[in-house]
């Protein structure tokens, strides 16, 4: 598939085309096994969360930084910029409006990157399943690594989820970025179906 067919960037005006990069994401093959394993360990031990509260669940993240839960001891830190983060947390229901920001922020993170969802809504819409405004299945739009259920999940369960995520990373099971690159066309089509005012590039580097 040539990049031209895939990325017309037709949501952008002519002037804007100049300002955005047109390249699609690529599949990046892992390093040789032992190095990759070591790296996976490092990745699992150094989880930088993008501090982007996308939904009501974000309120449950805050206690993690406090002395009671203190996620820092597990190597989990908050980061203010998606460039430096490796974990994206969809904090509960994702509205149509938020989805655009979620997609852009996610795409701006550098791989390997992981997505964690909190609560029921990202899984099936939860109590908002029939809302005109809420995304029902977030994994149609982003490759999800782990979903933590509950409405909302308590901080303890979030921590448990992170522990699970770390295990999965160490096992090399979390390869969302490559998945996204592979199924890019599908994801993009889904996203564009929902987001009507698509005014950003097709892939947000």
């Amino acid at each position, binding site marked *: 598939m040539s990049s031209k067919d895939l990325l017309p960037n037709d949501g952008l005006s002519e002037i804007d085309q*100049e300002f*955005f*990069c047109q390249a699609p994401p690529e599949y990046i093959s892992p390093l040789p096994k032992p190095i990759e394993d070591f790296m996976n360990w490092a990745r699992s031990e150094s989880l930088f969360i993008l501090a982007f509260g996308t939904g009501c669940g974000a309120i449950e993240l805050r206690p993690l930084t406090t002395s009671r839960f203190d996620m820092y001891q597990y190597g989990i830190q908050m980061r203010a910029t*998606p460039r430096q983060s490796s974990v994206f947390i969809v904090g509960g229901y994702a509205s149509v409006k938020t989805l*655009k*920001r979620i997609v852009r922020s996610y795409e701006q993170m550098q791989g390997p990157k992981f997505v964690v969802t909190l609560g029921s809504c990202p899984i099936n819409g939860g109590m908002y399943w029939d809302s005109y405004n809420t995304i029902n299945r977030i994994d149609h739009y982003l490759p999800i690594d782990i979903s933590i259920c509950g409405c909302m999940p308590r901080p303890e369960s979030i921590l448990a989820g992170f522990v699970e995520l770390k295990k999965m990373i160490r096992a090399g099971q979390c390869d969302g970025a490559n998945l996204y690159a592979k199924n890019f066309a599908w994801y993009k089509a889904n996203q564009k179906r929902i987001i009507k005012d698509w005014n*950003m590039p097709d892939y947000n580097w």
Partner: protein
Amino acid sequence: MVAYFQNPLNIYITAMAAAFLLGLVHKLGKMASLTLFYGALTMMAAVTLGSALSLSQPLIIQTAGFIAPLSINLQFGYYEAFFTICVNIAALLGGLYLYDYLKDSVLARALFLMLVVGINGMIMTRDLFNLFIFIEITSIATYGLIGLDRNIKALSAGFKYILAGGMISAFFLLGTALTYYKTGTLNIDQIIAMKDVLQDPIGLTAITLLLTALLIELKPFPANGWGLDVYQGSNAGIAAMISVGVSTGALFALYKLLPLFPAQHMGIISGIGLATFFFSNLMGLKQTDAKRMLGYSSIGQMGLVLLALSFFHTAPLTMFLGIVGGLFLNHFLAKAALFWIAGIVKKDHIKEWGILSQSKMLTVVFIIAVFALIGLPPFPGFWAKWQFIMVLGSGNHTFIIAAILIGSLFEAVYLLRWFNYVLAGSEEKLACEKSKRVPVLIFGLITAFISALLIKSSLGPQSSIYFFPIAFAVILMFVGNFIPTKLRALFAISGISYLSYYVQMNVSGLNLIFAQMFLWGGMILSIATFYKTKAKPATYGLLFLMLASLGGLVLSRTTLEFFFCWEIMTLASYLLVISGKNAKKAALTYITFSLGSAAFLMAGFALSNSLTLMGLAALPSSQATIVFTLLALGFLIKMGAFGVHIWVPGAYAEAEDDISAFIAAILSKAGVFGLFVIAIYMQSTISNSTLAYSLGWLGILTATFGALMAAFQEDIKKLLAYSSMGQMGYVIAAVALMSHLGWVTALYLSINHILYKSLLFLSVAGVIYRVNTREMYKMGGLIKKMPISFISAMMAIIAMSGVPPLTGFGGKWLMYTALIEKGWHLQAALAFFASGIAFLYMYRLVHSIFLGQAKPEHKDVKEAPLWLIIPQVIFMGLMMVGSTLPRLWVEKLSVAVGEFMPSTLTWSGQTATTSLGYWNGFMVMNIVGVIFVIVLIFLLLTFQKVQKVKQFNIVFAGERPFTPETTHVAYNMYAPVQKALGGWVKPRATAFWDGVTEWSHTLSHMFAGIYTGNGQTYLFFILLFFLMLNFLIGAN
């Protein structure tokens, strides 16, 4: 026939015969009478010239077959010859100029002829009563001619003139009567011989009356309101004749009678002259009517001539002609030309004078005239004023020097403000008859010719060094219209190359270093000027002139040569600045401060009593302190030191972009050179003095405030300008250290400043050329479009900030070492602060222009033109070499300074060692290079995939940026700093100088208030003037 031309009496005979015949000949037809008129004028001029040329000794002409005192005699000596030549040539050209005016009225022609006769008579006659008659002839002819314009202005002005004239003639006649009563003769020579008889009350009253009358003819302050009205109200051609002709007659008449005046009271005359000069120019400041302004200037100049006359009326011929004659000639040529031009322009208000710029030739003459009046070289006024001031200096007439210099400055301000209006241009068409244009041009040519002669004669054996470059520059300026830009540039560069070769052959040591800075720097920078497809015609000539004058500065041995070059440099740079698009206001500020600087220099040189620069070394210390202060102030102004820096941003910013580079990089070093010169020669006095200490503080303050102000600029060139000011501050401090290390530092910083300021200004010139704005926040992201410009700017700021490994660090290292070695610790701390502040603006510069967000309108911007890139590459290369092998040049500087004081900088290998520390530039460069490469390789190896992205691919809180303008952080970048330190850089200096301007304008207005326009008031002033004179003479 030859005899005809050799007898001055024929001037009168010709004129009178012609004048009487005119009426009759007119019956034959207009052509006939016109021919007669112009024929007579020509013959008069020819007779004057012929008589003057055949003059072997002063000629006494007796009349009526009797020897004086029985009859009236005339004298035609060297002095008379000089003045009559001036007058008669002016009359011929003035008559030509008035052709339009005179062709309709035969009476007017007769009057004009008689006016000339009157003036000639005033000059030549040696009989007191005859002088009275000639004064009356002149006056009445003038009254009549003024009435030619029968409008209310001319009429009321003329009537006031008649009133004043009536009073003058009453005074003169009464004086004559009393003189005759006391001496029994009317022959001036006899009266002078018997002047002891006049030392009683009646005699003194007689003398006072005569002098009052003649002085009033010269329109002294404050009894000169009528004169101003006449200048303003009458036709320009007539005003010109009054200004250059009638005044000449009066001046010479006064000169004749001056021996009568008690020598111990000569100070009164000086005082009158000085007050007239000073106050006229002060009052001229507020003037907006062109002719009245010229009137103020005329009166002022005559005041100056009077002042000179009071000093030199007994001086030998050469000195008399050199000073009084020079000042007079200057006024004569310039004022006639200006009045004539005023008549061509026919606009009262100076704001409407833009129309003049439609005629290039007239504008050139205008400039020449204005510059001549200001006293810039090479025009006659410069030489005369220089000699005059030098003589005053040797007599310790400090007050007079100050008043003259301040008055000159006032004059310069209003004349140049006028020039600005001329340059403003206008849509209106300039109608100019050939008969009016020709005299103006001829006067322009005469001025140029005399100036050329004066260069040759005044500068002595070395003069050709100065003469030929100027000639070359002038030619280059004039051919500017005819040959293509590139060719002119080529000529200029080859000229500079030859000059640099020549200068380097002839100087050594410190001067050689400066010569190389000026000329090599200038040469490389000249390459950049190729980028303009179409330069203004005069640009290259001026550029060459500026660099040549810098070369001359280095060569100069005498104070005159130095000052000459300094002023030429001022002149050339001023014209270069003003050729910028909106540079007029800035250029005015620039030239005002430059002339102020020149005034300080002149005063300093005058008080030093020394003809050579070397002579400065021999001054006793009390005198040396004053001289040093004055000279240093002059140089400091030119360097834009703190407090007198307000010209800096305007001049740098508004000049054309490539010219700014010259001014910042090269021209600012002239002040450094000057400072060095005086520091070297007056080393013994200045070392360890409070003066040097204050100078050091001033330097550091300049650095601090320059940097601070630079940080708050939005205009890229103003930023650079303030930055230059700051950098010059370090140099000032370094020179003030008066230590070996300090001077090496100063040289090092100067050279480094040339390197990085050239880079910055050229880089910025390219940017401005491409994006057409100077506001930094309107640029951004240009690194991708103009990578080389970026690299050059980046190297420049690294060098400027003093970050190793580039050359800047050497400067900082030397500077701090030198400061601390000297014990100037607090200064060193402040310098640290200043260099910290410098980071602010340097970052701002590079970020706002080259980094951040590119603007859509700059989509198609290309790299700067090749011609701008070439010199940048050269400078970058030089900088790299200099950074890597600092010993290569620092040692040379050290040796050059070592001539004057023991070296404290030692070398082993590439390591420089001082008493405080050590520095190995070579090693630093290598270590940094190696580390950099290793780290870079490491980074390259670490990456798996790097995607090149574009400017909007940035983190934007989940959104996307919409416009580059709102995403680019550049405007008011240092708002927090401004909040914290903005109070330090409130425009206090500007406010101060604005205050000075306002005050002088208020004063100007206040004093001008005495000219109520009422003829009676003027008469009253004349009466008071007499009473004052009488009181002064009687009371003493």
